[in-house]
């Protein structure tokens, strides 16, 4: 195929959409759109009806309350000091108190003698 011929053919193909007429959908298009709208609405209505059922609503509320309670207890237990921290702080308090008390007492006795 000659280059000139090929170019001509390509150009003709590229211009083949000139004067193309706009086409439309089938004759019952609006009815189909309406049916689709109704279908979509029914789906949402089903979801909201399900959520609005007393049993479902009550279960969801119970679940939310128990989750909240669990989270509150977890936070409280993690904020209180651990056993090791408690033990160390107790021992250091105790030893500090004893040492000073003992020396204070001894100093007082020597002074008295």
């Amino acid at each position, binding site marked *: *195929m000659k280059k000139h011929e*090929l170019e001509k*053919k*390509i150009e*003709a*193909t*590229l211009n*083949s*959409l*000139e*004067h*193309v*007429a*706009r*086409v*439309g*959908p*089938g004759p019952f*298009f*609006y009815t*189909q*759109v309406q049916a*689709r*709208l109704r279908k*979509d609405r029914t789906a949402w209505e089903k979801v909201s009806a399900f959520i609005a059922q007393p049993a479902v609503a009550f279960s969801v509320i119970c679940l939310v309350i128990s989750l909240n309670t669990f989270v509150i207890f977890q936070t409280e237990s993690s904020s209180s000091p651990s056993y090791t921290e408690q033990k160390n702080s107790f021992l250091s308090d105790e030893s500090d108190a004893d040492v000073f008390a003992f020396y204070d007492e001894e100093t007082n006795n020597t002074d008295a003698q």
Partner: protein
Amino acid sequence: MSEWILIEQLKQGDEAAFKTIVETWQDMVYNTALGIVQNPEDAEDIAQEVFVQVYESIHSFKGEAKFSTWLYKITVTKTMDHLRRKKRKKRFAFVQSLFGANDEIAHDPPDFHHPGVVLDKKETATELFKAIEQLPDNQKIAFTLNKLEGLNYQEVSEIMNTTVPSIESLLHRAKNNLKKLLEIYYREKYDQNKF
């Protein structure tokens, strides 16, 4: 009736206004979708989705752009979603076929004949649509809006949320790619006929 009155009526839930809107713009929406997806059933499905979206989100239309531009934007978005879904399905079917789970034979889609093309250009238009199908999505959309819907660069740029120069360059690249694709196609066809 003015489109602004129709839109206001639809915002108030007027079914008759919605019917008029659908009937006025259904060809524009369907024709755009058809040009991009090249399948009448898919195009009709997309057009239905577009009008459902219009009904549900008419309150978000503030009138800053033309109503037709807003409609084109929804159409292009829905069409892109459709193409993405189709590509995903194709990939999934391919993976399934690798594991032997899908015994369906993959068929090439049949040639697309646009019903609005004049008779003496039917054959070349079919060849052009075959080439358009292979373009990247943004080039495909810009070319379809410009050539099939007859929109100017300004209108295409508003629909595609970009500037006029970028649409010019997009269409230039689309045309070059189509030329290359058509050249390969015609050379192969010529070689086949020779032997």
